[in-house]
């Protein structure tokens, strides 16, 4: 369990798993993480910071060799998860593949072009244009939930994450190590979305969001009842109800709740509900289509009618089309009332105490929505005037982020060895970290390592490369035994190892064994006898055969020498050993060709006879040990050698050595063996 800084055992570089947040490390916004393992690089999400503009809002992409990133996975369509995607796909060197779910992709396109339209910043600060978004669509591939995809040996698939339509959690598997990236998720089933699944496969590392830290959400039934009750109160006292929401995601959930509530309360039917967002209108067809990404309830409902075809809710194009003549319910964006329609409506309605405003989502510091929650007496309008705040203001969180209870349950089910916290403010994150560690304090069985890296600081995890290989084919014909020798080809493909016998190769892979034969022709004008003379000096292993009616010599049992008029052809099947033999034969042929020895005087093939060997042996022994130590006579083919009062007998015929002293015996054996090999022609090896 080596963590960063473990210097005792320098780990193999490729066994380290690096998780580097390039954004949303100890902050909320611009989610972007880089995963490095075994030379593969995967980027998770590519968002922008909603509070910043232009290049400042990008994640720290300059720290990455963008061209080396193999894969980019986008968890869902929120700006802080995909906002920088057109920039990344169109304006950088990125060459890898990019995946998101079907619904995410369909909404991504409209959401970003809306973002480009409303962001009122100078064109030079613009990260990308409408056309960049359109072009990026072609580069984005889609993935269905649970569908397994493999890219360069990285296997990944996704689970439903709740949160918003099409939100996904990615499980990534590289070389047997699994990392789960949750993106934003919610374990609470709501009107239209499923709760995030708990994967059945245990990941080794979980990268998890921590937006709500250690908070615990109100129960769904309670908050829905509170919400509908509030709306009912406001409209029945003759007031107008403003619900500022982000155009996509929670808005659809609220619309479903309101539509159902209106259906059940006929007395409210004269009171109109509007949603005032062209973006929401555009994306409604996406909601009407990707029913299969939603929960069981919706999928059953579609058998009757599409729940996203609302009966009591109409779309409001703009303020001009709005007849403000009586009680009404309006859902307007933006959700934090920074500007735009929700701000406009709020300013015109806040002075009447019958009216009400319900804040339904997460609010960032410094926005009007956050401000009015502190119940001030007055508010500042866009034009700088002061208005008294008389309408009621309520806060009901419909945010579909996980809370502490869900997070803790989720992690308990998964039992990952490492947890990396991202997407949360610094304080919330450290509180969550402390709480998680406390939870497993007394657990002797299982320890969880929690990390909360800052932006650009990598978490380094070491995974022991325990490699498993499968032995298949004829090699595995018998049950494995202790000390059984195994020898075959190890095939490594995308971190999978197989051991196969060469003959089985084509059965288990798309590769095949092949053979290369070589034929080399050399001009040779000398006689066969001469050639043979030289060859016998090279090898004792020469056979005469007839090949295609031509006299042929086989040398080393593998190289054929075909004798043709004026030339010889050397033919062999290539492999490193035979190549070497062939080279030797070539040298011999060239030597024979250049040898001017007349034909008549070709000496008979040199025979290595015993007497020659014995002569040489005696000579050598004399050189080694001096003439005194060597017995002068050879008796019964025996020579005795006396060195330092140790006596060894050498059989000159069989070249055996007998000696009481092991050291001497070894010395003699080696010497004699070398001598013999030097004199005698080469024999077929192996």
């Amino acid at each position: 369990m080596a963590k960063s800084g473990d210097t005792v055992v320098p780990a193999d570089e490729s066994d380290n798993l690096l998780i580097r947040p390039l954004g949303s490390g100890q902050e909320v916004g611009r989610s972007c993480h880089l995963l490095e393992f075994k030379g593969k690089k995967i980027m998770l999400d590519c968002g922008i910071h909603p509070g910043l503009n232009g290049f400042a809002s990008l994640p720290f992409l300059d720290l990455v060799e963008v061209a080396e990133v193999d894969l980019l996975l986008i968890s869902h369509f929120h700006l802080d998860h995909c906002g920088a995607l057109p920039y990344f796909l169109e304006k950088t060197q990125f060459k890898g593949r990019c995946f998101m779910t079907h619904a995410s992709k369909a909404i991504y396109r409209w959401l970003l072009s809306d973002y480009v339209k409303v962001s009122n910043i100078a064109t030079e600060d613009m990260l990308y244009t409408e056309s960049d978004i359109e072009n990026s669509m072609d580069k984005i591939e889609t993935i269905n939930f649970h569908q397994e995809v493999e890219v360069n040996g990285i296997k990944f698939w996704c689970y439903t994450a709740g949160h918003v339509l099409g939100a996904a959690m990615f499980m990534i598997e590289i070389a047997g190590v699994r990392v789960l990236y949750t993106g934003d998720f919610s374990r609470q089933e709501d009107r239209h979305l499923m709760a995030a699944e708990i994967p059945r496969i245990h990941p080794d590392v979980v990268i998890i969001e921590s937006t709500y830290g250690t908070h615990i959400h109100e129960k769904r039934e309670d908050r829905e009842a509170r919400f509908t009750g509030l709306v009912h109160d406001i409209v029945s006292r003759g007031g107008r109800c403003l619900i500022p929401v982000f155009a996509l995601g929670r808005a659809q959930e609220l619309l479903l709740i309101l539509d159902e509530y209106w259906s059940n309360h006929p007395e409210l039917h004269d009171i109109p509900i509007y949603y005032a967002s062209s973006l929401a209108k555009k994306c409604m067809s996406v909601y009407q289509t990707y029913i299969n990404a939603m929960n069981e309830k919706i999928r059953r409902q579609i058998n009757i009618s599409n729940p996203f075809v609302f009966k009591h809710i109409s779309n409001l194009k703009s303020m001009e089309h709005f007849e403000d003549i009586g009680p009404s319910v309006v859902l307007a964006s933006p959700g934090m009332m920074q500007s735009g329609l929700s701000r406009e409506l709020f300013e015109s309605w806040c002075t009447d105490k019958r009216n009400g405003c319900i804040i339904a989502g997460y609010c960032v510091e410094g926005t009007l929505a956050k401000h009015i929650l502190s119940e001030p007496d007055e508010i500042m309008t866009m034009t700088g005037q002061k208005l008294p705040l008389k309408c009621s203001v309520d806060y009901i969180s419909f945010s579909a982020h996980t809370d502490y209870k869900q997070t803790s349950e989720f992690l308990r089910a998964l039992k990952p060895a490492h947890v990396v916290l991202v997407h949360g403010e610094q304080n919330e994150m450290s509180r969550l970290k402390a709480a998680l560690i406390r939870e497993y304090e007394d657990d002797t069985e299982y320890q969880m390592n929690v990390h909360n890296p800052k932006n650009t600081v990598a978490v380094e995890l070491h995974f022991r490369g325990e490699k498993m290989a499968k032995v298949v084919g004829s090699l595995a014909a018998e049950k494995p035994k202790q000390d059984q020798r195994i020898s075959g080809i190890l095939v490594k493909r995308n971190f999978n190892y197989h051991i196969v016998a060469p003959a089985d190769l084509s059965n288990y892979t798309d590769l095949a064994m092949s053979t290369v034969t070589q034929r080399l022709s050399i001009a040779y004008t000398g006689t066969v006898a001469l050639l043979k003379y030289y060859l016998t000096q090279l090898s004792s292993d020469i056979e005469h055969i007839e090949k295609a009616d031509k006299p042929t010599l086989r040398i080393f049992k593998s190289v054929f020498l075909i004798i043709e008029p004026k030339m010889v052809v050397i033919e062999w099947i290539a492999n490193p050993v035979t190549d070497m033999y062939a080279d030797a034969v070539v040298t011999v042929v060239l030597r024979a060709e250049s040898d001017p020895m007349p034909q008549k005087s070709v000496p008979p093939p040199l025979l290595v006879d015993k007497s020659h060997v014995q002569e040489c042996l005696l000579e050598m022994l004399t050189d080694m040990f001096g003439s005194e130590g060597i017995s002068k006579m050879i008796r019964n083919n025996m020579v005795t050698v006396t060195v330092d009062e140790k006596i060894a007998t050498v059989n000159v015929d069989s070249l055996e050595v007998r000696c009481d002293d092991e050291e001497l015996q070894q010395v003699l054996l080696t010497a004699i063996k070398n001598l013999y090999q030097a004199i005698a022609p080469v024999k077929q090896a192996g």
Partner: protein
Amino acid sequence: AHNESPPCYMLQVDEFRFLLDCGWDEDFSMEFIKEIKRHAHQIDAILLTYPDHIHLGALPYLIGKGILNCPIYATIPVYKMGQMFMYDLYQSRHNTEDFNVFTLDDVDVAFDKIVQLKYSQTVHLKGKGHGIQITPLPAGHMLGGTIWKIIKDGEEEIVYAVDYNHKKERHLNGCVLENISRPSLMITDAFNATYVQSRRRARDEQLLTTILQTMRNDGNVLVAVDTAGRMLELAQLLDQMWRNAESGLSPYSLALLNNVSFNVVEFAKSQVEWMSDKIMRSFEEARNNPFHFKHVKLCHNLAELARIPEPKVVLASVPDLQCGFSRDLFLAWCGSPKNSIILTNRTSPGTLARWLIDNPENKTVTMDIRRRVKLEGAELDDYLRKRKNKEQEELRIKNEQKRELEDESSDESETEMDTDAQTVTSKGKHDLMMKSEGKSRTGFFKQAKKSYPMFPFSEEKLKWDDYGEIIRPEDYTIIDVPQTDEDSSAENVKKQDSAIQDLSEVPTKCVAATVTLDINANIQYIDFEGRSDGESIKKILSQIKPRQLILVRATTEATEALAEYCRKNEGVVQGKIFLPHIGEVVDVTRESHIFQVRLRDYVVSALEFAKAKETELAWIDGILDMSRGKVDTGAMYDAEEGELTEEKARKIQDGVLNGEEDPMEVVPTVEALPHNQFVGHKAVFINEPKLSDFKLVLLQEGISAEFIAGVLICNNNVAVRRNEAGRIQLEGTICEDFFKIRQILYSQYAIV
């Protein structure tokens, strides 16, 4: 196999038995079911490929009657559309006869058992099937169509692919068979092996001109389609034609008629992610849903259809003309030469549609008309009584009449079937409970509002009129004769039934009559089956190169033709080709031995890997150490260790035949060989470079190379050729080039 009966095969992998598809023919013959029944108790899982009755028709019967009880795997569209198919089929049958092979409840029960999957979602089976993974892959043909990949122990790959379509269509992508390489066993059909398809454009044009001509002559066009499969492709095509202002079709009407058309279109709309890239892109970029029809009007019964002004094009189910609205319309329209009838699918032999395709010159057809009529018989009485009971409509059994057409002369077995049907009729088996049940079910799945117009009484009356009007121009005298028979049989039935009849319900009965009809209408067969044709099947097979092949579901000639092709072309199928007959058991057991070993880090890092394509290879020499299986597991895996080792151990057990398994969970570890034991091995050249590729490499290295009579001549003195055995031969005189080229050639191989 060896004929065109619906697919239904049993595959046994070790102890685990799959049922691949569960089809039933158009006539629901019990013969077919018997065979399945015998094996039913052994089946552990069912894999479905397409939503039509050919591929899952027997499911409601088998599951609903409790014969089978096991998980069923299918993709989401197959689940949804399959349900639609079965509802529609039931409804079509029920409209004309007493159909009690299965009920709508059976359909629901059966489909509740389906495990819904996405493409490429891998399922690891548990229990008996441990170690087996199943994965559905896109197959084209119909929405959600599936090729099943069954993998055992991560090594043995079995592919079940029938009726796939490799071509892109309007609403579907082609199949992904290209990505499957060298499966151990492939099960595929030879249905189209000898079939030649005209080009898609030609077929589209043929359809357009037929429609246009008929329309201009003031005639109607009947297009016989299925419920929710190929229909989508045709509906989309026609809708596009209508949208095209130049086509000149806009003044005419276009209607889709089946019992579940509204739901089918709704479901199709919500399954964009299963359709072609083009559709997906257009939806993502412009929010265009292709099944948001502008011109296709959805009808659920003949009355609704009657309101649509003529001339009209009607897409009606079912494709085989054996029952359903298409049969009604055929009967009504075939008499007039103005009308056209377009068949889109070669259905099973013995069906009316198939007979029409096979005998295009035949101008008269004798068939059996079946319909459901009120027992009161006399039209007027009926009418009055219905008036009275109008407020009790929801209790009333629908009263649609249908005619069943049978060709008696062409097929012996059909006459048999007919008599069967007639005996059923005269027995008057009226299970009223079942019927009212059927009714309430219908209400449920149709969802009140939309389906309601299906049954109101006043429209039924309209239908009566419709029927009368249409029948008159035809052979009236002939139809008159059986009419009397009908009446008498009606009386019989009435007597039998009256005892058990609830007064509030209007009893109905089914009558059958044999009629000879002249076919004056223009009948055309235009192929919109969406299957790969023979040529492509062969091409695909030679790409996939399965190690063993099983051919099913085709006529003997077609099967033989394909098998012949595979045998002739070396390398297409390495192993055996099986052509099983029905009921025949094929043994394709391969000696597959697998065990798993743990590789020590130092062993692997000492290896030198050579690259070939995407793989890296190295020669490994090692020795197995069984003793340290469990000791040396990484701390990282602590949490899951128990589970993991168990899995591995099991794999060993599966792989080794008859091996006595060590109770200890041991994974052998490969340790390096001690040095003195090291023995050399023969070098192995891996890869099969192509000469043309090699030429490019040579040119890059600055060596001139060109092909002369199939031999690559390099620098005019070295020749590289491939001899008959596939060996590469390098030949030349001794010179520098020879060794240089040899070096380059070696670099094309992975040498270990």
